[in-house]
């Protein structure tokens, strides 16, 4: 589903990614962990070209993202993204946030787009918040709307960039629950997170990044019970 080969990314002189190779199979849930500054977010943001790779190849469903002929807007409709800070559109209601892209990008009729939006609000447990503006929602509710908004384009892949890091602790659970449901339904997911419980329970594979490289990867069991890399051991000992 996703194939990344030799991905490098520099911001000026600062090298953030130093050759990432990675594959994600359909229906797989990959959890990316690592210390801050290790490049996990940049890696994720390269997958839908919010950051332009300096070199390397990225393929989504066999289509190269770095090929100039590729329509990047079309690719992005296949790749949903959920941000740490939600980034809901504050001038639009929950319903409008979700239906905007189906209306404008997919050119659906208003009724059809709103049906999709209502369906997704129900899925994330916020049917009663359709007409509410983001500033009237709690952080957890905003993030659930943001997930619904990304799902409205019926993406093949969902990317989560620390989706619970900006939330109050008591709201983390409701967002993780929505993500677990998605995983169970077979959504292909790449999740950057510090939620080790989620990684262990939902992840098919865990990737540890440090200094712009994938240092270790494996199933959650291997990963947490028998870490090989010394930096991973140090990282785990600090956070577990």
């Amino acid at each position, binding site marked *: 589903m996703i194939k990344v080969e030799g991905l490098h990314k520099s911001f000026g002189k600062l090298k953030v990614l130093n050759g990432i190779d990675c594959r994600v199979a359909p229906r797989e849930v990959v959890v990316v962990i690592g210390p801050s500054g290790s490049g996990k977010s940049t890696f994720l943001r390269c997958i839908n070209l919010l950051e332009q790779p300096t070199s390397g190849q990225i393929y989504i469903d066999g289509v190269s993202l770095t090929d100039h002929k590729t329509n990047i807007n079309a690719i992005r*409709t296949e790749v949903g993204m959920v941000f740490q800070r939600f980034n809901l559109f504050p001038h639009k209601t929950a319903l409008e946030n979700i239906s905007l892209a189906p209306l404008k*990008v997919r050119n659906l009729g208003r009724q059809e787009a709103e049906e999709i939006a209502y369906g997704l609000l129900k899925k994330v447990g916020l049917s009663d918040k359709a007409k509410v503006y983001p500033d009237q929602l709690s952080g957890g509710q905003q993030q659930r709307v943001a997930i619904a908004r990304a799902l409205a384009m019926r993406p093949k892949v969902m990317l989560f960039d620390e989706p619970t890091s900006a939330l109050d602790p008591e709201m983390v659970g409701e967002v993780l629950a929505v993500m677990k449901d998605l995983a169970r339904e077979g959504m292909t997911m790449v999740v950057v997170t510090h939620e080790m419980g989620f990684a262990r329970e939902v992840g098919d594979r865990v990737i540890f990044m440090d200094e712009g490289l994938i240092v270790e990867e494996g199933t959650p069991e291997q990963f947490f019970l028998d870490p090989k890399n010394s930096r991973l051991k140090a990282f785990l000992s600090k956070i577990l």
Partner: protein
Amino acid sequence: MEVVRQTFHIMLIGAAATLQITVISVAIGCMLGLVVGLSRLSKMRFLRLAATAYVDFFRGTPLLVQIFLVYYGLPQVLRDLQTYLMDSFNMPQILTQYALPVFLAAVISCSLNSAAYIAEIFRAGVQSIEKGQMEAARSLGMTAGQSMRYVILPQAVKRVIPPLGNEFIAMLKDTSLLSVIGFEELSRKGQLIAGQTYVAFPVWLTVAFLYLVMTFTFSRLVDYLERRLKTGD
């Protein structure tokens, strides 16, 4: 004062002309300013440079000089251009008279000037919107134009209302410069009345008062709008 009472309706006509030219200029300035302001943020280098040069020129030179350039300069440019086209390409003569009507010169110069200031207002407004908004819109597959139109601009518009109000008030006062080319707005009316009657202080005080009524009313209107739009931001 007798003079003021007798000429007050003339000053009102002048005030109406002031208001009219300001509204037209700021309206055109808004449209042109949006284009220039967005060009300043464009990825295309040429557009960016052209827009920057535009803003630099019109903010960096006095409006009075710009009025002269348009009113006295533009007709000569048009004449020379036509002569050149007729001589070199055998184009038929289109313009027989070159002088610009005063009203048109007033609209052109004030709109061009206003657009430069408004461009900066829009640019700042767009840049003040958090980067994540554009990223969220683009990540949904919207084009840059769609993201700007449906996500960024609606939010930016709220934020630019106070500075746009300031620009309107500044322009309303600056239109007094149009008196130098004989455009009969409020200041020109004051000049004419004071010149004919030799009554200066009461006349100019009344002129000042009429400006104040317009700017004061408008700034209260902007305050009100600002408060109403604040909800839901």
